[in-house]
């Protein structure tokens, strides 16, 4: 599978490490229900058959975390971006 890294271009999936769902956001530790929120953040994951936003780390390349939009049924990749982009406040 080829993953188009926004920095390096299309590279083989072997160069990447997989993390999973890109959507969970690390909760605020000071929130009154922080324990529940962290439980969900650490353990609860959807496993959709179809469109999925996920994180890949270009470990054998530019070391950037890349957010990949991939169809889990076909492995078709529709978009990639640096993970940091969507997150910088």
């Amino acid at each position, binding site marked *: 599978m080829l993953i188009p890294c926004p920095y390096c271009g299309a590279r083989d999936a072997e160069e990447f490490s997989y993390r999973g769902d890109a959507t969970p956001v690390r909760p605020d530790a000071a929130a009154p229900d922080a324990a529940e929120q962290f439980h969900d953040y650490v353990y609860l994951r959807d496993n959709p058959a179809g469109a999925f936003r996920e994180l890949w780390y270009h470990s054998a390349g530019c*070391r950037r975390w890349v957010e990949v939009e991939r169809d889990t049924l076909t492995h078709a990749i529709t978009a990639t971006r640096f993970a940091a982009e969507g*997150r910088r406040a």
Partner: protein
Amino acid sequence: MSRLEKNGLIDRTQKLRFTFDSKFFEGFQGDTLASALLANDVKLVGRSFKYHRPRGIVGGGAEEPNALVELRSGARREPNTRATTAELYDGLEARSQNRWPSLDFDVLAVNGLLSPFFGAAFYYKTFMWPKAAWEKLYEPAIRRAAGLGRAAQEADPDIYEKANAFCDVLVIGSGPAGLSAALAAGRSGARVILAEEDFAFGGRLLSERTTINDAAPTEFVDKTLAELRALPNVRLMRRTSVAAIYDDCYAAVERVGDHLRTPEKFQPRQILWRITAKRAVLAAGALDRPIVFGGNNRPGVMLAAPAQTYINRFAVAPAKKMAVFANNDAAWTTAFDALDAGAEVAALIDTRDTVSPTLAQAAQDRGLRVILGGEVFATKGKCLDSIELRAAGKTEILQVDGLAMSSGFSPNIALTCHHGGKPVWNEAIAAFVPGECPPGLSVAGAATGAYSLSDCLAQGAAQGAQAATEAGFKATAPDTPKAEDAPRALKAFWHVENSKGMAFVDFQNDVCAKDVVLAHKEGFVSVEHLKRYTTLGMATDQGKLSNVPGLALMAKQSGKTIAETGTTMFRPPWSPVALGAFAGHHRAKDFRPARLTPTHALAEELGAVFVEAGPWLRAAYFPRKGETNWKQSVDREVRAVRESVGVIDVSTFGKIELQGPDVGKLLDRIYINTFSTLPIGKARYGVMLREDGFVMDDGTTARLGQDRWIMTTTTANAAKVSQHLDFCLQNLWPDLDVRMASVSEQWAQIAVAGPRSRGLIAQIVDDASAVSAENLPYMGALETTVLGGVQARIFRLSFSGELGFEIAVPADQGEQLARKILETGAEWDATFYGLEALAVMRIEKGHVSGPELNGQTTAADLGFGRMASTKKDYIGAVMARRPALTDPDRMGFVGFKPVNPKEVLRAGAHVLAKGAAATTENDLGYLTSATISPTLGHAIALGFVKGGAARIGEILRAWDGLRGTDILVEILAPAFYDSKGERSNG
């Protein structure tokens, strides 16, 4: 000899000698083993899998189910090689397999006589009971009786490569469609790879007598190849089988040296190619299929299309006198070609009642006897000597030694299914055609079910041009040459009812028509179940011939159509791939690269014994003269450190350089303890957690300047921690102004420890005062120079528990530094020590390491509870406060020593109370690290016990069910040696 006197694509000037079952034969350059055997009238080539029935060559390529041989001998012996794909070379050795004592007389052929008892799932049913007999009795006996060939018993002496290729258009197959596609794409300037499984390009054009532009088809092949060869953007790869389609790549096996007796020196035997192609055109052609009738497996019965190949391409008459039995026009051309080549054809039996007048005329012109509406229902002879047929209510026996059969063609669609695409049944040609194809793949020619030569040429050109266009090139389909189209009509026909003798569906697995019927009666109504139950379509040929006839029989049983019945899934690979090709160079020591420390050569000089530590090769200990076992060496090394000075290479630790104004903030968030307050010139021990609250790694981080920090990690977690930091910086806190880089490879790090270490280091640094106790106190860090100007970082750290220094220098200076230290320290017998001594000393000191950081332990479990800040959030902070993780009854970190000091403790033992049974409920904990301390003179261990430090002083048991020991132990605080740390602080 059945070699025809003229024609054929063999080089009669190049005689090749070979042996089959130790008998010498001759063939020609251009032969396969199969064609050479047929030319020598060898018809019996193997025994079948289950019944040990005599078998002959039935196909012409990868589809061959019968002619499986052991090729070569000794370490190169390869079982289950299809004689039809083995290119003949001088000195080839082949043996028949699955027969005993000989191919001609096989004792186990008695299985065939017992066939009424050997129905579908015979093995499952018969050998189920008693269960114990399976392993001891049945399985070994069955394996001997029903096996294929024998694998070599020695290591494979050949080299296998893995390689990558990139192209715009990959064309799979080089028949009329493939050649046209490659030409159309190649002319546009696109990078084209044309992959052909065979050793000759041309596909069916090599086998059929037709015309293209009024000339022989081989002329078209030669002309096209000449043009393709002249194009620098086209790469022709013959002997290359595209075996699988994965995501964004094609896997192909190139048989580089298989046509040679042994590969040339340094030449690989095979290359496993990973081909990345923007587009691909599948032009893999189609395969002829058998008819299911009584005795259809007898040597001498062959598929019609391969028979035509033997006649036209290899100039071999498959029989002296043959008959043809078919349901389609194409098989008629086999009869015509046999006649035209001078062979005798007794009759052509067609199941259809009528055929086209042109076809009938062509037969009449040749004087060929045609029997319409006929069926062959029995055969006779060990090798075929007669067939029995019926037509128009009468039966007749024909004396023939060859029968070409055909139930029509099946397109080679396997590759189109590798992404899950389902083939579609096409009633008009009674075959499955491609359904949804993998992205980027289109299909042309006979593989689509378009069998006429003009269609193949036109489709190939169109698909080749389109593929190149989609890959970004300006391409137009070249004009299709004028081609003579052979008739291709067909009427579906699968099975001769009321046959005499066993009617085989799957030759390789000995599955008969009655087995399919039985499976259906027993309720196996799904095709996938049918396959597993009867083994139909398994093994090397994966049902290339048997699949469709088997489905047809099944459909008939259930009263469904074949379309409704569906087909089993085609999975990679298309044809068998040698395991060596998958392994490539990754064998034995080269299984993965070994990482060597900067002082590796020095350690070798000193006679080190090395041990694999993850990917690293590290010195375990350094035996000296007179030492007879490793413990003596290790104890001496420990004593040297405790009493004088020792030296060890610790370069394998992960080292991460961190820079920027926010490094302190980052460290506060990833370590349980606070780092932002760390003064410049100091190092601090830190523990980091995973977000689930368990410990991930530990190590020291030093502050070298206002915005410059250097972190160390454990050897094992170096890459993981680096990835973790990148995750934190890029995903969690992209606002932090921090830059980081792994510098593990850039710095060599040498630890010098022991009471004499300061005196020694003072002679290594350029400015001796730099390492004075005042300038560099315990946990101090500074940058200076050593060895006359070599940049260095010195840390006052100690893993051994003695006064210690770690000196980091650029990696290429590491060996020089270590040599200088040993040379300077000679007066104190400065001793290079290894991992074993290091492990002994850290256990004596109660320092945690890999066995304790096992992913199941919290900071509190390890005794770092008080280190954890309560004033800040950090990774894992919230989850570490979960009730189960803060339960005071959790297993906590302690030390153990045997009550009887003569006893030896071992890691892995479980802790039990006195008198308690060894059950999971009674489990109190476990030992993680153990050693015999040379300093204390008895065994000690580290580990975890319920309640932790609260149990100090108790006497419990270390029970080791694996090694059968049960030892009384006293629970101690984990630091056995210098528990106040006075020695390292000095």
